[in-house]
């Protein structure tokens, strides 16, 4: 196998001489060497795409330098230079075909997966999203006092569409500065300034507020702190501001923050400065905290109980879904796979309809159908069952909805597999006197499984993370009583992660969410690795 891999394809070698496709018969000129040959249209397309890549790289360089994102900057230029190098010379045809998709794969799938692994070991979450220097800057800007000899400014308020506020400050020397809650910049350094006469009316997305409008934002404006090296600039009135000094001093050597008014010292503990009395300063920063996110799932009693329930239900849900959809799909395929039967095609195309509808819509529709008071299901049954609010009924509902969503697929694939079973085998069995059940269990089912087993494992892997069915039908509910994290009786791991990340009342806990995601990664990888034994994919690589 390895010999065929390393052998150079003769056809690939032939096309390496540049300019073959251009057909004008001249020597490979410098132009062709750069363009790699091909029709003028292809060359034009290639050059403009590469031009676009280089142009964007140049544009983003300045912004990445601003953000001090050195790693991203390096990666971007490495990719840009690599792309230009690859596509401006002949040969390396395999790379030319594979690289475009690979770049997307690296940036938007592999990197996020690795990044998830990193977040899982940190305290990333509400209150801990900044890096440490920024957090210290903001802590210092929070606690300020205006000394008697402070620099004072004339001030005008600005606001952008999102409601973020900014100040245009004129110092005693007449120099103008523009300050946001993030930074203070001399106005001359900002490119996008609109003026009318003497008056500055807009800076970037920020627009000048009239005094009347500013009055509306008065309380927010009073709280605005524009960070400076040793404190912050804050408003004194709506039109004047003063440079205040921070009452918190950061000592870099000892890595501690001291409050100069109270004398209390704050030391860093897992991403926050904390005093000896346990007073925590916020915001904190993103800090590595080790394996705590992982162990928490198993050791903290308020998390462990619900987590284990979610875990067990996740397997029950995935196995149950595969089993039910397969049984119903196969049963229908057996019943309808009879050549003498009329309107077989009609049945088939109508039965596939649930598969053709977008599942996010039908999942939402089922929520309405299963409503206790007014739902169609209770209406038809003449019952009053709490389909979505009782822990056990909710589980049954979820399986029912997933059965409805999934059986057409199983029906399609088992029908296909049934038709591939040689009919003479069944006929021979009949001649030998085998009954219907014997024929099914000894011939049909084993033959069917050869084709369908990999699909069943794939279906299991899919349902293991079937977020839509669970979340859109029940939101994971009804809630498990006494759970510290948002967990419900029908939650599977992925919906549980989603709710920890985006719906927790105590603020987002990305670190813990990522840790659970990593645990799911490991389980799914286990399932996939197992399934590879059933596919011939590995042997097929020739």
């Amino acid at each position, binding site marked *: 196998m390895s010999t065929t891999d390393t052998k150079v394809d003769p056809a690939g070698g032939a096309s390496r001489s540049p300019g073959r496709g251009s057909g004008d018969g001249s020597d490979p000129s410098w132009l062709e060497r750069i363009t790699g040959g091909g029709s003028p249209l292809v060359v034009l397309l290639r050059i403009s795409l590469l031009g676009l890549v280089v142009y964007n790289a140049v544009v983003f360089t300045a912004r990445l330098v601003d953000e001090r994102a050195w790693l991203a900057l390096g990666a971007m230029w490495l990719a840009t230079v690599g792309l230009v190098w690859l596509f401006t010379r002949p040969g390396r045809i395999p790379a030319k075909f594979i690289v475009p998709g690979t770049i997307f*794969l690296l940036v938007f*799938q592999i990197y996020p997966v690795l990044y998830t692994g990193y977040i899982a070991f940190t305290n990333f979450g509400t209150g801990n999203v900044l890096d440490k220097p920024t957090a210290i800057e903001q802590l210092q800007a929070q606690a300020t006092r205006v000394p008697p000899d402070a620099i004072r400014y004339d001030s005008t308020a600005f606001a952008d569409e999102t409601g973020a506020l900014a100040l245009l400050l004129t110092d005693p020397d007449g120099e103008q500065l523009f300050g946001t809650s993030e930074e203070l910049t001399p106005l001359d350094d900002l490119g996008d300034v609109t003026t009318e006469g003497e008056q500055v009316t807009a800076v970037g997305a920020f627009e000048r507020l009239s005094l009347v409008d500013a009055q509306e934002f008065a309380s927010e404006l009073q709280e605005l702190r524009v960070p400076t090296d040793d404190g912050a600039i804050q408003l004194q009135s709506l039109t004047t501001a003063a440079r205040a000094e921070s009452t918190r001093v950061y000592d870099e050597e000892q890595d501690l923050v001291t409050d100069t008014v109270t004398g209390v010292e704050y030391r860093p503990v897992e991403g926050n400065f904390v005093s000896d009395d346990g007073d925590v300063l916020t915001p904190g920063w993103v800090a590595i905290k080790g394996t705590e996110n992982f162990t928490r799932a198993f050791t903290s009693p308020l998390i462990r109980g619900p987590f284990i329930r979610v875990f067990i239900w996740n397997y029950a849900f995935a196995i149950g879904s595969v089993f039910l959809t397969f049984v119903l799909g196969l049963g229908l395929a057996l019943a309808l796979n009879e050549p003498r039967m009329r309107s077989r095609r009609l049945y088939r195309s109508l039965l596939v309809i649930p598969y053709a509808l977008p599942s996010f*819509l039908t999942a939402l529709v089922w929520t309405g159908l299963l409503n206790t008071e007014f739902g169609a299901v209770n209406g038809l049954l003449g019952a009053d069952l709490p389909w979505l609010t009782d822990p056990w009924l909710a589980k049954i509902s979820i399986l029912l909805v997933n059965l409805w969503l999934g059986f057409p697929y199983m029906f399609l694939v088992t029908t*296909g597999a049934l038709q591939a079973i040689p009919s003479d085998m069944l006929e021979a069995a009949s001649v030998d006197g085998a009954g219907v059940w014997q024929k099914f269990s000894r011939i049909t089912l084993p033959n069917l499984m050869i084709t369908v087993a990999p699909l069943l494992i794939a279906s299991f892997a899919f349902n293991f993370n079937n977020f839509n069915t669970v979340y859109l039908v029940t939101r994971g509910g009804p809630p498990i009583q006494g759970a510290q994290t948002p967990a419900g009786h029908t939650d599977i791991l992925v919906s549980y992660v989603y709710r920890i990340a985006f719906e927790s009342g105590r603020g987002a806990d990305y670190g813990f969410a990522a840790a659970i995601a990593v645990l799911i990664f490991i389980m799914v990888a286990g399932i996939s690795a197992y399934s*590879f034994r059933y596919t011939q994919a590995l042997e097929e690589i020739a």
Partner: protein
Amino acid sequence: MTRWFQDIGWRHLVGVVALLFALFPVAWVLSASVNPTGTLAGQQLIPAEPTLENFRALFATDFWLWFRNSLIVAGTGALGTVLLAALAAYAFSRLRFRGRRTGLLSLLLVQMFPQLLAFVAIFLMMIAIGDVAPAIGTGTIAGLILVYLGGAMGVNTWLIKGFFDTIPKDLDESALVDGATHWQVYSRIIMPLAAPILAVVGLLAFVAILNDFVIANAVLSQNSDSWTLSIGLFRYIDDRYGARWGPFSAGAVIGSIPTVFLFMFLQKYIVSGLTQGSVKG
């Protein structure tokens, strides 16, 4: 008669019961969309006086904006997916090079770590991208499409490669001898012949993107102008199930049209594509 029932009749019975199960939610939504009361409480299977009032109420929301966003995201995403996956599939099927086997195996390995599960990281990453490049950062449709293209390779490349392998090599070899470049062989010979599998991969990508809620919500939730149908309709109906049932049903009816249309259009390819592709891994 009983003989007929034992042979054929029971099959019709099973078929009809299955049809009732498969179609009753569909019938119910269709009727709810034209029901004059427009609430969950007031629904009947056959409304006495059908109206289009629910559609009017639906169009008063941002429905068309969500619908348009969904079509753009799913359409562009599906197209890009087919293109990127087919490019790589061509190299894996037609060219022999060092690292080919490793590359194919890596694609399988990457599939073990689905993008869906990394949504927390994608959420945080898109915020960071938004700081540098607002046009493709959090809250933008363009950013969401780029994220989806990250999942383009993998299974799709394997599916398409499997089909490319069945196209006789004599075709492209003779073209290469005649002086065609690999790009020309790919775009003029292989791609047209592979239309069935490209259609199936495109359809599956379209449906998967249209159905996605998790990643779309992680990327777009802060900017309501960029919401897709799944986010928009979910937020519209969430918590107000009873009162908004009618307009929601109208939205479900319209929202289903693109995929139903695609399925009808591509029906003949789907079954063969599904079984063939999946069996090959």
